[in-house]
Protein backbone atom coordinates (compact mmCIF):
# COMPACT_ATOMS: atom_id res chain seq x y z
CA UNK A 1 0.00 0.00 0.00
CA UNK A 2 1.04 3.59 -0.59
CA UNK A 3 2.46 5.17 2.59
CA UNK A 4 0.06 7.11 4.77
CA UNK A 5 0.89 10.22 6.73
CA UNK A 6 -1.37 11.09 9.63
CA UNK A 7 -1.23 14.88 10.07
CA UNK A 8 -2.16 15.62 13.66
CA UNK A 9 -2.40 19.27 14.54
CA UNK A 10 -3.39 20.80 17.83
CA UNK A 11 -2.58 23.83 19.90
CA UNK A 12 -4.15 25.83 22.72
CA UNK A 13 -7.37 24.24 23.96
CA UNK A 14 -7.28 21.78 21.08
CA UNK A 15 -4.48 19.91 22.84
CA UNK A 16 -6.99 18.86 25.49
CA UNK A 17 -9.27 17.52 22.75
CA UNK A 18 -6.35 15.74 21.13
CA UNK A 19 -5.51 13.97 24.36
CA UNK A 20 -9.08 13.17 25.33
CA UNK A 21 -10.59 12.35 21.95
CA UNK A 22 -8.48 12.68 18.81
CA UNK A 23 -5.54 10.45 19.71
CA UNK A 24 -7.53 7.73 21.49
CA UNK A 25 -9.82 7.51 18.45
CA UNK A 26 -7.12 7.12 15.82
CA UNK A 27 -5.37 4.59 18.07
CA UNK A 28 -8.43 2.33 18.20
CA UNK A 29 -7.61 -1.18 16.90
CA UNK A 30 -9.02 -0.80 13.38
CA UNK A 31 -7.57 2.61 12.75
CA UNK A 32 -3.80 3.26 12.86
CA UNK A 33 -2.93 -0.05 14.60
CA UNK A 34 -4.66 -1.92 11.76
CA UNK A 35 -2.61 -0.01 9.20
CA UNK A 36 0.74 -0.78 10.80
CA UNK A 37 -0.24 -4.40 11.42
CA UNK A 38 -1.07 -4.74 7.74
CA UNK A 39 2.20 -3.49 6.38
CA UNK A 40 1.30 0.12 5.65
CA UNK A 41 4.16 2.58 6.15
CA UNK A 42 2.73 5.13 8.56
CA UNK A 43 4.19 8.46 9.61
CA UNK A 44 2.68 10.41 12.47
CA UNK A 45 3.24 14.10 11.72
CA UNK A 46 2.44 16.25 14.74
CA UNK A 47 2.04 20.01 14.39
CA UNK A 48 1.78 22.49 17.25
CA UNK A 49 3.07 25.84 18.50
CA UNK A 50 5.97 26.61 20.82
CA UNK A 51 3.76 27.17 23.85
CA UNK A 52 2.36 23.63 23.60
CA UNK A 53 5.49 21.89 22.41
CA UNK A 54 6.25 19.95 25.59
CA UNK A 55 2.75 18.61 25.97
CA UNK A 56 2.29 17.65 22.32
CA UNK A 57 5.75 16.09 22.22
CA UNK A 58 4.82 13.89 25.16
CA UNK A 59 1.59 12.84 23.45
CA UNK A 60 3.46 12.20 20.20
CA UNK A 61 6.05 10.02 21.90
CA UNK A 62 3.42 8.04 23.74
CA UNK A 63 1.44 7.46 20.53
CA UNK A 64 4.54 6.51 18.61
CA UNK A 65 5.63 4.07 21.32
CA UNK A 66 2.24 2.48 21.27
CA UNK A 67 2.03 1.80 17.54
CA UNK A 68 5.61 1.16 16.52
CA UNK A 69 5.72 -2.12 18.41
CA UNK A 70 2.74 -3.32 16.38
CA UNK A 71 4.34 -2.75 12.99
CA UNK A 72 4.77 -5.82 10.83
CA UNK A 73 6.34 -4.10 7.84
CA UNK A 74 7.75 -0.64 7.47
CA UNK A 75 8.74 1.04 10.76
CA UNK A 76 6.40 3.72 12.06
CA UNK A 77 8.00 7.14 12.16
CA UNK A 78 6.94 10.31 13.91
CA UNK A 79 7.78 13.98 13.39
CA UNK A 80 6.97 17.19 15.25
CA UNK A 81 6.73 20.54 13.49
CA UNK A 82 6.42 23.84 15.33
CA UNK A 83 4.42 26.65 13.79
CA UNK A 84 5.51 30.28 13.85
CA UNK A 85 4.91 32.25 17.03
CA UNK A 86 2.47 35.11 17.30
CA UNK A 87 0.06 34.15 14.55
CA UNK A 88 -3.68 34.12 14.89
CA UNK A 89 -5.14 30.57 14.91
CA UNK A 90 -6.48 30.79 11.36
CA UNK A 91 -3.07 31.67 9.96
CA UNK A 92 -1.35 29.01 12.03
CA UNK A 93 -3.74 26.43 10.62
CA UNK A 94 -3.04 27.55 7.06
CA UNK A 95 0.72 27.32 7.64
CA UNK A 96 0.31 23.78 8.94
CA UNK A 97 -1.90 22.87 6.02
CA UNK A 98 0.73 24.02 3.57
CA UNK A 99 3.36 21.91 5.29
CA UNK A 100 1.05 18.89 5.28
CA UNK A 101 0.16 19.25 1.59
CA UNK A 102 3.73 19.77 0.43
CA UNK A 103 4.99 16.87 2.51
CA UNK A 104 2.30 14.56 1.12
CA UNK A 105 2.97 15.60 -2.48
CA UNK A 106 6.75 15.40 -2.13
CA UNK A 107 6.68 11.93 -0.61
CA UNK A 108 3.84 10.51 -2.72
CA UNK A 109 1.90 9.68 0.45
CA UNK A 110 -1.77 9.65 1.18
CA UNK A 111 -2.64 11.93 4.06
CA UNK A 112 -5.31 11.94 6.75
CA UNK A 113 -5.70 15.20 8.64
CA UNK A 114 -6.55 14.21 12.20
CA UNK A 115 -7.25 17.53 13.88
CA UNK A 116 -7.28 17.26 17.67
CA UNK A 117 -11.04 17.62 17.89
CA UNK A 118 -11.92 14.91 15.35
CA UNK A 119 -13.03 11.53 16.66
CA UNK A 120 -12.71 8.72 14.09
CA UNK A 121 -14.98 5.72 14.55
CA UNK A 122 -13.09 2.45 14.87
CA UNK A 123 -12.60 1.05 11.36
CA UNK A 124 -12.99 4.36 9.54
CA UNK A 125 -9.27 4.77 8.85
CA UNK A 126 -8.91 1.10 7.84
CA UNK A 127 -11.83 1.41 5.40
CA UNK A 128 -10.63 4.64 3.81
CA UNK A 129 -7.11 3.29 3.41
CA UNK A 130 -8.35 0.02 1.93
CA UNK A 131 -10.49 1.80 -0.63
CA UNK A 132 -7.84 4.39 -1.38
CA UNK A 133 -5.43 1.80 -2.70
CA UNK A 134 -7.06 3.05 -5.88
CA UNK A 135 -4.53 5.62 -7.05
CA UNK A 136 -5.23 9.35 -7.13
CA UNK A 137 -8.58 9.39 -5.35
CA UNK A 138 -9.40 11.52 -2.35
CA UNK A 139 -12.02 10.10 0.00
CA UNK A 140 -14.71 11.77 2.05
CA UNK A 141 -17.29 10.34 4.42
CA UNK A 142 -19.75 11.16 7.15
CA UNK A 143 -18.69 14.03 9.35
CA UNK A 144 -20.97 15.05 12.23
CA UNK A 145 -20.55 18.08 14.54
CA UNK A 146 -21.12 17.34 18.24
CA UNK A 147 -21.19 19.28 21.51
CA UNK A 148 -18.08 18.65 23.53
CA UNK A 149 -19.50 18.22 27.04
CA UNK A 150 -22.33 15.93 26.07
CA UNK A 151 -20.11 13.94 23.73
CA UNK A 152 -17.50 13.49 26.47
CA UNK A 153 -20.15 12.31 28.89
CA UNK A 154 -21.46 9.73 26.42
CA UNK A 155 -17.97 8.49 25.57
CA UNK A 156 -17.32 8.05 29.30
CA UNK A 157 -20.57 6.14 29.63
CA UNK A 158 -19.58 3.84 26.78
CA UNK A 159 -16.16 3.24 28.30
CA UNK A 160 -17.67 2.48 31.68
CA UNK A 161 -20.19 0.03 30.27
CA UNK A 162 -17.97 -1.62 27.67
CA UNK A 163 -14.34 -0.78 28.49
CA UNK A 164 -12.94 -3.39 26.12
CA UNK A 165 -15.09 -2.49 23.14
CA UNK A 166 -13.85 0.23 20.82
CA UNK A 167 -16.25 2.88 19.58
CA UNK A 168 -17.11 1.63 16.12
CA UNK A 169 -18.86 3.68 13.51
CA UNK A 170 -22.38 2.60 14.45
CA UNK A 171 -21.75 3.37 18.14
CA UNK A 172 -20.21 6.70 17.18
CA UNK A 173 -23.32 7.59 15.17
CA UNK A 174 -25.41 6.88 18.26
CA UNK A 175 -23.21 9.03 20.47
CA UNK A 176 -23.06 11.80 17.87
CA UNK A 177 -26.82 11.88 17.42
CA UNK A 178 -27.22 12.15 21.20
CA UNK A 179 -24.78 15.06 21.38
CA UNK A 180 -25.65 17.00 18.23
CA UNK A 181 -24.80 20.67 17.99
CA UNK A 182 -27.64 23.15 17.72
CA UNK A 183 -26.90 23.40 14.01
CA UNK A 184 -27.33 19.66 13.55
CA UNK A 185 -30.50 19.58 15.62
CA UNK A 186 -31.90 22.30 13.38
CA UNK A 187 -31.06 20.29 10.26
CA UNK A 188 -33.71 17.59 10.71
CA UNK A 189 -36.14 18.18 7.89
CA UNK A 190 -38.96 15.89 9.01
CA UNK A 191 -40.29 18.99 10.76
CA UNK A 192 -41.68 21.95 8.88
CA UNK A 193 -39.51 24.41 10.79
CA UNK A 194 -35.80 23.82 10.41
CA UNK A 195 -32.57 25.52 9.37
CA UNK A 196 -31.36 23.03 6.74
CA UNK A 197 -31.39 25.82 4.17
CA UNK A 198 -28.75 27.55 6.23
CA UNK A 199 -26.66 24.59 7.42
CA UNK A 200 -26.33 22.77 4.10
CA UNK A 201 -27.35 19.52 5.81
CA UNK A 202 -30.67 17.72 5.60
CA UNK A 203 -31.25 14.85 8.01
CA UNK A 204 -34.24 12.51 7.78
CA UNK A 205 -35.38 9.82 10.21
CA UNK A 206 -36.01 6.65 8.18
CA UNK A 207 -36.19 3.91 10.80
CA UNK A 208 -35.57 3.44 14.52
CA UNK A 209 -31.84 3.19 13.98
CA UNK A 210 -31.51 4.46 10.46
CA UNK A 211 -31.34 8.03 9.21
CA UNK A 212 -30.53 9.66 5.90
CA UNK A 213 -28.28 12.66 5.38
CA UNK A 214 -27.74 14.94 2.42
CA UNK A 215 -24.83 17.29 2.84
CA UNK A 216 -23.68 19.83 0.29
CA UNK A 217 -20.07 19.98 1.39
CA UNK A 218 -18.52 16.72 2.53
CA UNK A 219 -14.89 17.37 3.46
CA UNK A 220 -11.74 15.53 2.33
CA UNK A 221 -10.73 12.98 4.96
CA UNK A 222 -8.07 10.92 3.17
CA UNK A 223 -6.35 12.95 0.47
CA UNK A 224 -3.98 12.08 -2.36
CA UNK A 225 -2.33 15.40 -3.12
CA UNK A 226 -0.61 15.95 -6.47
CA UNK A 227 1.59 18.78 -7.73
CA UNK A 228 -1.39 20.35 -9.55
CA UNK A 229 -3.16 20.51 -6.20
CA UNK A 230 -0.30 22.54 -4.75
CA UNK A 231 -0.85 25.04 -7.56
CA UNK A 232 -4.54 25.12 -6.68
CA UNK A 233 -3.90 25.67 -2.97
CA UNK A 234 -1.28 28.30 -3.72
CA UNK A 235 -3.77 30.22 -5.86
CA UNK A 236 -6.20 30.15 -2.96
CA UNK A 237 -3.55 31.22 -0.43
CA UNK A 238 -3.49 27.86 1.37
CA UNK A 239 -6.87 28.46 2.91
CA UNK A 240 -8.13 25.41 4.83
CA UNK A 241 -11.82 26.30 4.30
CA UNK A 242 -11.22 26.26 0.53
CA UNK A 243 -9.40 22.94 0.82
CA UNK A 244 -12.55 21.61 2.43
CA UNK A 245 -15.22 23.27 0.30
CA UNK A 246 -13.79 24.20 -3.11
CA UNK A 247 -11.01 21.69 -3.78
CA UNK A 248 -13.52 18.79 -4.05
CA UNK A 249 -15.02 20.55 -7.09
CA UNK A 250 -11.70 20.30 -8.86
CA UNK A 251 -11.39 16.67 -7.80
CA UNK A 252 -14.85 15.94 -9.19
CA UNK A 253 -13.84 17.51 -12.50
CA UNK A 254 -10.71 15.34 -12.49
CA UNK A 255 -12.62 12.21 -11.44
CA UNK A 256 -10.58 11.98 -8.24
CA UNK A 257 -13.35 12.43 -5.63
CA UNK A 258 -15.15 9.60 -3.86
CA UNK A 259 -17.64 9.89 -0.99
CA UNK A 260 -18.22 6.95 1.31
CA UNK A 261 -21.97 7.24 1.55
CA UNK A 262 -22.60 5.22 4.69
CA UNK A 263 -21.57 5.57 8.31
CA UNK A 264 -20.59 1.91 8.31
CA UNK A 265 -17.69 2.81 6.03
CA UNK A 266 -16.60 6.03 7.70
CA UNK A 267 -17.84 8.27 10.48
CA UNK A 268 -16.04 11.19 12.09
CA UNK A 269 -17.40 13.33 14.92
CA UNK A 270 -16.13 16.89 15.10
CA UNK A 271 -16.15 18.13 18.67
CA UNK A 272 -17.21 21.72 19.18
CA UNK A 273 -17.83 24.03 22.08
CA UNK A 274 -20.53 26.63 21.63
CA UNK A 275 -19.54 28.04 18.26
CA UNK A 276 -20.87 31.26 16.84
CA UNK A 277 -22.40 29.47 13.86
CA UNK A 278 -24.76 27.58 16.10
CA UNK A 279 -25.81 30.75 17.90
CA UNK A 280 -26.74 32.22 14.53
CA UNK A 281 -28.97 29.32 13.51
CA UNK A 282 -32.42 30.62 12.56
CA UNK A 283 -34.94 27.88 11.76
CA UNK A 284 -37.71 28.87 9.35
CA UNK A 285 -41.12 27.38 8.60
CA UNK A 286 -41.85 25.86 5.20
CA UNK A 287 -38.65 23.83 5.15
CA UNK A 288 -40.10 20.31 5.41
CA UNK A 289 -37.92 17.85 3.48
CA UNK A 290 -35.77 20.72 2.25
CA UNK A 291 -32.31 19.79 1.05
CA UNK A 292 -31.39 22.98 -0.79
CA UNK A 293 -28.65 25.19 0.57
CA UNK A 294 -28.64 28.98 0.58
CA UNK A 295 -24.87 29.19 0.62
CA UNK A 296 -24.43 27.35 -2.70
CA UNK A 297 -21.36 25.15 -2.91
CA UNK A 298 -19.78 24.54 -6.30
CA UNK A 299 -20.08 20.79 -5.80
CA UNK A 300 -23.34 20.98 -3.88
CA UNK A 301 -25.58 19.69 -6.66
CA UNK A 302 -23.45 16.59 -7.10
CA UNK A 303 -23.75 15.74 -3.44
CA UNK A 304 -27.43 16.60 -3.25
CA UNK A 305 -28.42 13.45 -5.14
CA UNK A 306 -26.58 11.22 -2.67
CA UNK A 307 -28.56 10.09 0.35
CA UNK A 308 -25.95 8.98 2.87
CA UNK A 309 -26.97 6.48 5.54
CA UNK A 310 -26.43 6.77 9.27
CA UNK A 311 -26.85 3.49 11.12
CA UNK A 312 -26.80 3.80 14.89
CA UNK A 313 -26.10 1.09 17.41
CA UNK A 314 -27.37 1.92 20.86
CA UNK A 315 -25.56 1.08 24.05
CA UNK A 316 -27.11 -2.05 25.50
Amino acid sequence: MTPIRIAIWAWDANVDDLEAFGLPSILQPNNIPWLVQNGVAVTLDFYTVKADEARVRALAEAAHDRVRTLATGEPVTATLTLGPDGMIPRDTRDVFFRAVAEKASDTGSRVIIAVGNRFFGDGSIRNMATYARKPRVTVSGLHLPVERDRFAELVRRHMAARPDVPIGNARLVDIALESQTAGMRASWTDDDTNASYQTGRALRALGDDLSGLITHAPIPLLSQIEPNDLTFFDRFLWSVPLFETVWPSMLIAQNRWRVMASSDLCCVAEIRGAPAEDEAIAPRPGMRYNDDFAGEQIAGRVHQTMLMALRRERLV
Partner: protein
Amino acid sequence: MRTPIRLAIWIWGRGIDDFTTFCLPSILQPDNLPWLVRNGYPLVLDFYTVSWSAAVVGRLGEALATQLRALAPDADVSATFYVADAKPSTYDIKIEFLKAVLHRGVETRAPQIFILADMYYGDGSLRTLVTYGQKPGITVSGLYLRVKRERFSELLAHHHAVTGGSSVSNARLVDIAFDSLIEGVRASIADVDRNATYSTSGSLRQITDDLYTFTFHVPTPILCSFEPQDIAFFEQHEWNMYMIDHLWPSMLIAQNRWRVLASSDLLFVAELNAASVENDVHVHETHDGMLYNDEYVHEHLNGRHHQAMLMTFRRERLPETEAAR
Protein backbone atom coordinates in the same frame (compact mmCIF):
# COMPACT_ATOMS: atom_id res chain seq x y z
CA MET B 1 -53.25 12.99 5.42
CA ARG B 2 -50.50 10.83 3.95
CA THR B 3 -49.59 10.99 0.29
CA PRO B 4 -51.05 7.91 -1.44
CA ILE B 5 -48.47 5.48 -2.78
CA ARG B 6 -49.11 3.60 -5.99
CA LEU B 7 -47.38 0.32 -6.73
CA ALA B 8 -46.91 -0.39 -10.43
CA ILE B 9 -46.91 -4.20 -10.41
CA TRP B 10 -46.05 -5.74 -13.80
CA ILE B 11 -46.89 -9.43 -14.05
CA TRP B 12 -48.02 -11.78 -16.72
CA GLY B 13 -47.34 -15.26 -18.06
CA ARG B 14 -44.45 -17.09 -16.42
CA GLY B 15 -43.74 -14.03 -14.29
CA ILE B 16 -46.76 -14.90 -12.17
CA ASP B 17 -44.87 -17.84 -10.65
CA ASP B 18 -41.87 -15.66 -9.87
CA PHE B 19 -44.17 -13.07 -8.36
CA THR B 20 -45.92 -15.49 -6.03
CA THR B 21 -42.73 -17.36 -5.11
CA PHE B 22 -40.34 -14.45 -4.56
CA CYS B 23 -41.65 -10.94 -5.02
CA LEU B 24 -44.93 -11.23 -3.16
CA PRO B 25 -43.47 -12.79 0.01
CA SER B 26 -40.77 -10.13 -0.02
CA ILE B 27 -43.11 -7.15 -0.26
CA LEU B 28 -45.31 -8.72 2.44
CA GLN B 29 -42.45 -8.77 4.96
CA PRO B 30 -43.33 -6.77 8.10
CA ASP B 31 -41.43 -3.56 7.26
CA ASN B 32 -42.54 -3.42 3.65
CA LEU B 33 -46.23 -3.17 2.67
CA PRO B 34 -47.61 -4.14 6.11
CA TRP B 35 -45.60 -1.32 7.68
CA LEU B 36 -47.04 1.16 5.18
CA VAL B 37 -50.61 0.03 5.86
CA ARG B 38 -50.15 0.10 9.64
CA ASN B 39 -48.66 3.58 9.42
CA GLY B 40 -51.57 5.08 7.56
CA TYR B 41 -50.28 5.22 3.99
CA PRO B 42 -53.09 4.89 1.44
CA LEU B 43 -51.97 2.23 -1.05
CA VAL B 44 -53.13 1.68 -4.60
CA LEU B 45 -52.03 -1.61 -6.12
CA ASP B 46 -51.92 -1.01 -9.87
CA PHE B 47 -51.58 -4.35 -11.64
CA TYR B 48 -50.39 -4.30 -15.23
CA THR B 49 -50.95 -7.54 -17.10
CA VAL B 50 -51.91 -8.98 -20.49
CA SER B 51 -55.23 -10.42 -21.59
CA TRP B 52 -54.33 -14.09 -21.27
CA SER B 53 -53.19 -13.61 -17.65
CA ALA B 54 -55.91 -11.17 -16.60
CA ALA B 55 -58.10 -13.65 -14.73
CA VAL B 56 -55.26 -15.06 -12.60
CA VAL B 57 -53.79 -11.63 -11.89
CA GLY B 58 -57.24 -10.32 -11.02
CA ARG B 59 -57.73 -12.97 -8.34
CA LEU B 60 -54.19 -12.46 -7.06
CA GLY B 61 -54.63 -8.71 -6.86
CA GLU B 62 -57.95 -8.80 -5.04
CA ALA B 63 -56.58 -11.35 -2.57
CA LEU B 64 -53.55 -9.16 -1.86
CA ALA B 65 -55.68 -6.06 -1.34
CA THR B 66 -57.96 -7.98 1.03
CA GLN B 67 -54.99 -9.34 2.95
CA LEU B 68 -53.52 -5.85 3.38
CA ARG B 69 -56.85 -4.29 4.37
CA ALA B 70 -57.10 -6.78 7.22
CA LEU B 71 -53.91 -5.43 8.78
CA ALA B 72 -55.39 -2.22 10.15
CA PRO B 73 -58.94 -1.06 10.89
CA ASP B 74 -58.47 2.15 8.92
CA ALA B 75 -56.45 0.59 6.09
CA ASP B 76 -56.92 2.35 2.77
CA VAL B 77 -55.91 -0.20 0.12
CA SER B 78 -57.36 -0.58 -3.35
CA ALA B 79 -56.44 -2.46 -6.50
CA THR B 80 -56.72 -1.55 -10.18
CA PHE B 81 -56.03 -3.66 -13.25
CA TYR B 82 -54.62 -2.52 -16.55
CA VAL B 83 -54.94 -5.21 -19.19
CA ALA B 84 -52.99 -5.00 -22.43
CA ASP B 85 -53.93 -6.90 -25.53
CA ALA B 86 -51.49 -9.48 -26.89
CA LYS B 87 -48.40 -7.91 -28.45
CA PRO B 88 -45.72 -9.20 -30.83
CA SER B 89 -43.01 -9.02 -28.16
CA THR B 90 -42.37 -8.59 -24.45
CA TYR B 91 -40.72 -5.29 -25.25
CA ASP B 92 -43.95 -3.99 -26.82
CA ILE B 93 -45.90 -5.01 -23.74
CA LYS B 94 -43.45 -3.16 -21.52
CA ILE B 95 -43.70 -0.02 -23.64
CA GLU B 96 -47.45 0.00 -23.30
CA PHE B 97 -47.15 -0.44 -19.54
CA LEU B 98 -44.58 2.34 -19.29
CA LYS B 99 -46.89 4.74 -21.11
CA ALA B 100 -49.77 3.79 -18.86
CA VAL B 101 -47.70 4.19 -15.69
CA LEU B 102 -46.42 7.61 -16.73
CA HIS B 103 -49.84 8.95 -17.63
CA ARG B 104 -51.31 7.60 -14.41
CA GLY B 105 -48.52 9.19 -12.39
CA VAL B 106 -49.09 12.55 -14.00
CA GLU B 107 -52.87 12.37 -13.61
CA THR B 108 -52.83 11.30 -9.96
CA ARG B 109 -49.64 13.13 -8.90
CA ALA B 110 -48.81 10.12 -6.74
CA PRO B 111 -45.35 8.60 -6.34
CA GLN B 112 -45.18 5.18 -7.98
CA ILE B 113 -42.95 2.27 -7.06
CA PHE B 114 -42.03 -0.26 -9.73
CA ILE B 115 -42.67 -3.80 -8.49
CA LEU B 116 -41.45 -6.40 -10.95
CA ALA B 117 -42.10 -10.12 -10.66
CA ASP B 118 -38.45 -11.15 -10.43
CA MET B 119 -37.49 -8.61 -7.75
CA TYR B 120 -36.94 -9.58 -4.10
CA TYR B 121 -37.13 -6.58 -1.74
CA GLY B 122 -35.24 -6.69 1.56
CA ASP B 123 -37.42 -6.16 4.62
CA GLY B 124 -37.52 -2.44 5.38
CA SER B 125 -36.68 -1.33 1.84
CA LEU B 126 -40.22 -0.18 1.04
CA ARG B 127 -40.55 1.54 4.42
CA THR B 128 -37.37 3.54 3.79
CA LEU B 129 -38.21 4.25 0.16
CA VAL B 130 -41.65 5.59 0.98
CA THR B 131 -40.58 7.48 4.10
CA TYR B 132 -37.88 9.27 2.17
CA GLY B 133 -40.05 9.56 -0.95
CA GLN B 134 -42.48 11.83 0.87
CA LYS B 135 -40.29 14.63 -0.37
CA PRO B 136 -42.36 15.95 -3.29
CA GLY B 137 -41.30 15.67 -6.89
CA ILE B 138 -38.27 13.42 -6.51
CA THR B 139 -37.43 10.11 -8.12
CA VAL B 140 -35.45 7.68 -6.01
CA SER B 141 -32.99 4.95 -6.90
CA GLY B 142 -31.08 2.51 -4.72
CA LEU B 143 -29.00 -0.63 -4.63
CA TYR B 144 -29.88 -3.78 -6.49
CA LEU B 145 -27.93 -6.74 -7.85
CA ARG B 146 -28.65 -9.51 -10.33
CA VAL B 147 -28.56 -12.99 -8.83
CA LYS B 148 -28.87 -16.58 -10.11
CA ARG B 149 -32.44 -17.62 -9.50
CA GLU B 150 -31.76 -21.26 -8.52
CA ARG B 151 -28.91 -20.54 -6.14
CA PHE B 152 -30.78 -17.62 -4.61
CA SER B 153 -33.79 -19.82 -4.08
CA GLU B 154 -31.68 -22.44 -2.26
CA LEU B 155 -30.10 -19.85 0.02
CA LEU B 156 -33.43 -18.23 0.74
CA ALA B 157 -34.87 -21.59 1.73
CA HIS B 158 -31.83 -22.18 3.96
CA HIS B 159 -32.34 -18.81 5.64
CA HIS B 160 -35.97 -19.63 6.37
CA ALA B 161 -35.07 -23.11 7.59
CA VAL B 162 -32.45 -22.01 10.11
CA THR B 163 -34.20 -18.87 11.31
CA GLY B 164 -37.63 -20.39 11.60
CA GLY B 165 -38.96 -18.30 8.72
CA SER B 166 -37.91 -14.89 9.95
CA SER B 167 -37.91 -11.98 7.54
CA VAL B 168 -34.97 -11.23 5.27
CA SER B 169 -33.53 -7.87 6.23
CA ASN B 170 -31.54 -5.84 3.73
CA ALA B 171 -28.26 -6.98 5.30
CA ARG B 172 -29.30 -10.64 5.18
CA LEU B 173 -30.46 -10.19 1.60
CA VAL B 174 -27.06 -8.74 0.68
CA ASP B 175 -25.44 -11.85 2.13
CA ILE B 176 -27.71 -14.17 0.16
CA ALA B 177 -27.25 -12.12 -3.00
CA PHE B 178 -23.46 -12.07 -2.70
CA ASP B 179 -23.47 -15.85 -2.55
CA SER B 180 -25.63 -16.11 -5.67
CA LEU B 181 -24.36 -13.34 -7.97
CA ILE B 182 -24.58 -13.86 -11.71
CA GLU B 183 -21.19 -14.15 -13.36
CA GLY B 184 -21.50 -10.69 -14.91
CA VAL B 185 -21.73 -9.11 -11.46
CA ARG B 186 -19.02 -11.39 -10.09
CA ALA B 187 -16.84 -10.04 -12.89
CA SER B 188 -17.49 -6.54 -11.51
CA ILE B 189 -15.29 -7.15 -8.49
CA ALA B 190 -12.42 -4.73 -9.06
CA ASP B 191 -10.03 -5.97 -6.34
CA VAL B 192 -8.42 -8.23 -8.95
CA ASP B 193 -6.47 -7.19 -11.99
CA ARG B 194 -8.67 -9.12 -14.42
CA ASN B 195 -12.31 -8.09 -14.38
CA ALA B 196 -15.13 -6.81 -16.58
CA THR B 197 -15.95 -3.56 -14.80
CA TYR B 198 -15.22 -1.59 -17.94
CA SER B 199 -18.28 -3.08 -19.61
CA THR B 200 -20.61 -3.88 -16.68
CA SER B 201 -20.91 -0.27 -15.41
CA GLY B 202 -20.48 -1.48 -11.83
CA SER B 203 -17.33 -1.64 -9.71
CA LEU B 204 -17.47 -3.64 -6.51
CA ARG B 205 -14.72 -3.40 -3.88
CA GLN B 206 -14.35 -5.46 -0.71
CA ILE B 207 -13.41 -3.29 2.25
CA THR B 208 -13.83 -5.76 5.12
CA ASP B 209 -15.40 -9.20 5.53
CA ASP B 210 -18.87 -7.70 5.58
CA LEU B 211 -18.53 -4.28 3.94
CA TYR B 212 -18.22 -3.45 0.27
CA THR B 213 -18.28 -0.32 -1.82
CA PHE B 214 -20.04 -0.14 -5.16
CA THR B 215 -19.62 2.44 -7.88
CA PHE B 216 -22.48 2.29 -10.33
CA HIS B 217 -22.85 4.43 -13.44
CA VAL B 218 -26.50 3.68 -14.19
CA PRO B 219 -28.76 3.35 -11.14
CA THR B 220 -32.37 2.52 -12.03
CA PRO B 221 -35.37 4.59 -10.88
CA ILE B 222 -37.42 2.67 -8.32
CA LEU B 223 -39.82 5.27 -6.84
CA CYS B 224 -40.89 7.76 -9.48
CA SER B 225 -42.75 11.07 -9.33
CA PHE B 226 -43.70 11.75 -12.93
CA GLU B 227 -44.50 15.19 -14.32
CA PRO B 228 -45.97 16.23 -17.70
CA GLN B 229 -42.52 17.09 -19.01
CA ASP B 230 -41.49 13.46 -18.46
CA ILE B 231 -44.15 12.33 -20.90
CA ALA B 232 -42.71 14.80 -23.39
CA PHE B 233 -39.24 13.37 -22.72
CA PHE B 234 -40.27 9.79 -23.42
CA GLU B 235 -42.32 10.79 -26.46
CA GLN B 236 -39.31 12.57 -27.84
CA HIS B 237 -37.34 9.35 -27.43
CA GLU B 238 -40.11 7.24 -28.99
CA TRP B 239 -40.86 5.52 -25.70
CA ASN B 240 -37.55 3.71 -25.76
CA MET B 241 -37.72 1.57 -22.60
CA TYR B 242 -33.99 1.80 -21.93
CA MET B 243 -34.15 5.57 -21.58
CA ILE B 244 -35.69 5.22 -18.15
CA ASP B 245 -32.41 4.24 -16.52
CA HIS B 246 -29.90 5.22 -19.19
CA LEU B 247 -30.91 8.79 -19.95
CA TRP B 248 -33.89 10.07 -17.99
CA PRO B 249 -31.91 10.35 -14.70
CA SER B 250 -29.67 12.89 -16.44
CA MET B 251 -32.67 15.15 -16.89
CA LEU B 252 -33.73 14.54 -13.30
CA ILE B 253 -30.26 15.48 -12.06
CA ALA B 254 -30.39 18.72 -14.04
CA GLN B 255 -33.81 19.44 -12.54
CA ASN B 256 -32.73 18.46 -9.01
CA ARG B 257 -35.31 15.65 -8.89
CA TRP B 258 -32.96 12.66 -8.55
CA ARG B 259 -31.89 10.96 -5.31
CA VAL B 260 -29.94 7.75 -4.76
CA LEU B 261 -30.28 5.80 -1.52
CA ALA B 262 -26.60 5.00 -1.31
CA SER B 263 -26.52 2.18 1.24
CA SER B 264 -28.00 -1.31 1.28
CA ASP B 265 -29.22 -0.57 4.80
CA LEU B 266 -31.63 1.89 3.25
CA LEU B 267 -32.77 -0.21 0.32
CA PHE B 268 -31.72 -3.41 -1.37
CA VAL B 269 -33.35 -5.43 -4.12
CA ALA B 270 -32.16 -8.72 -5.60
CA GLU B 271 -33.13 -9.24 -9.23
CA LEU B 272 -33.53 -12.92 -10.02
CA ASN B 273 -32.13 -14.00 -13.36
CA ALA B 274 -32.83 -17.35 -14.99
CA ALA B 275 -29.80 -19.07 -16.50
CA SER B 276 -31.06 -18.17 -19.97
CA VAL B 277 -31.23 -14.46 -19.14
CA GLU B 278 -27.78 -14.55 -17.58
CA ASN B 279 -26.24 -16.41 -20.49
CA ASP B 280 -28.02 -14.54 -23.27
CA VAL B 281 -27.98 -10.96 -22.01
CA HIS B 282 -25.51 -10.41 -19.22
CA VAL B 283 -22.26 -11.93 -20.40
CA HIS B 284 -19.21 -9.69 -20.10
CA GLU B 285 -15.65 -10.34 -21.21
CA THR B 286 -12.96 -9.82 -18.62
CA HIS B 287 -9.79 -7.85 -19.36
CA ASP B 288 -6.41 -7.52 -17.68
CA GLY B 289 -5.22 -4.24 -16.19
CA MET B 290 -8.55 -3.41 -14.56
CA LEU B 291 -7.46 -3.38 -10.90
CA TYR B 292 -9.70 -0.90 -8.98
CA ASN B 293 -11.22 0.28 -12.27
CA ASP B 294 -14.49 2.19 -12.05
CA GLU B 295 -14.57 3.64 -15.56
CA TYR B 296 -17.28 2.55 -17.95
CA VAL B 297 -16.83 2.11 -21.66
CA HIS B 298 -20.38 3.17 -22.49
CA GLU B 299 -20.15 6.72 -21.17
CA HIS B 300 -23.39 7.93 -19.66
CA LEU B 301 -24.40 11.52 -19.36
CA ASN B 302 -24.74 11.03 -15.64
CA GLY B 303 -22.00 8.43 -15.18
CA ARG B 304 -19.43 10.87 -13.82
CA HIS B 305 -21.99 12.19 -11.41
CA HIS B 306 -22.57 8.76 -9.91
CA GLN B 307 -18.89 7.87 -10.00
CA ALA B 308 -18.19 10.06 -6.96
CA MET B 309 -20.70 8.11 -4.88
CA LEU B 310 -19.41 5.04 -3.04
CA MET B 311 -22.56 3.10 -2.40
CA THR B 312 -22.30 0.62 0.46
CA PHE B 313 -23.20 -3.01 0.83
CA ARG B 314 -23.35 -4.40 4.36
CA ARG B 315 -23.85 -8.13 4.63
CA GLU B 316 -25.03 -10.00 7.67
CA ARG B 317 -24.24 -13.70 7.68
CA LEU B 318 -26.31 -16.35 9.33
CA PRO B 319 -24.97 -16.97 12.84
CA GLU B 320 -22.68 -20.00 12.61
CA THR B 321 -24.62 -22.00 15.12
CA GLU B 322 -27.82 -21.49 13.17
CA ALA B 323 -26.15 -22.13 9.84
CA ALA B 324 -24.71 -25.37 11.17
CA ARG B 325 -28.06 -26.46 12.46
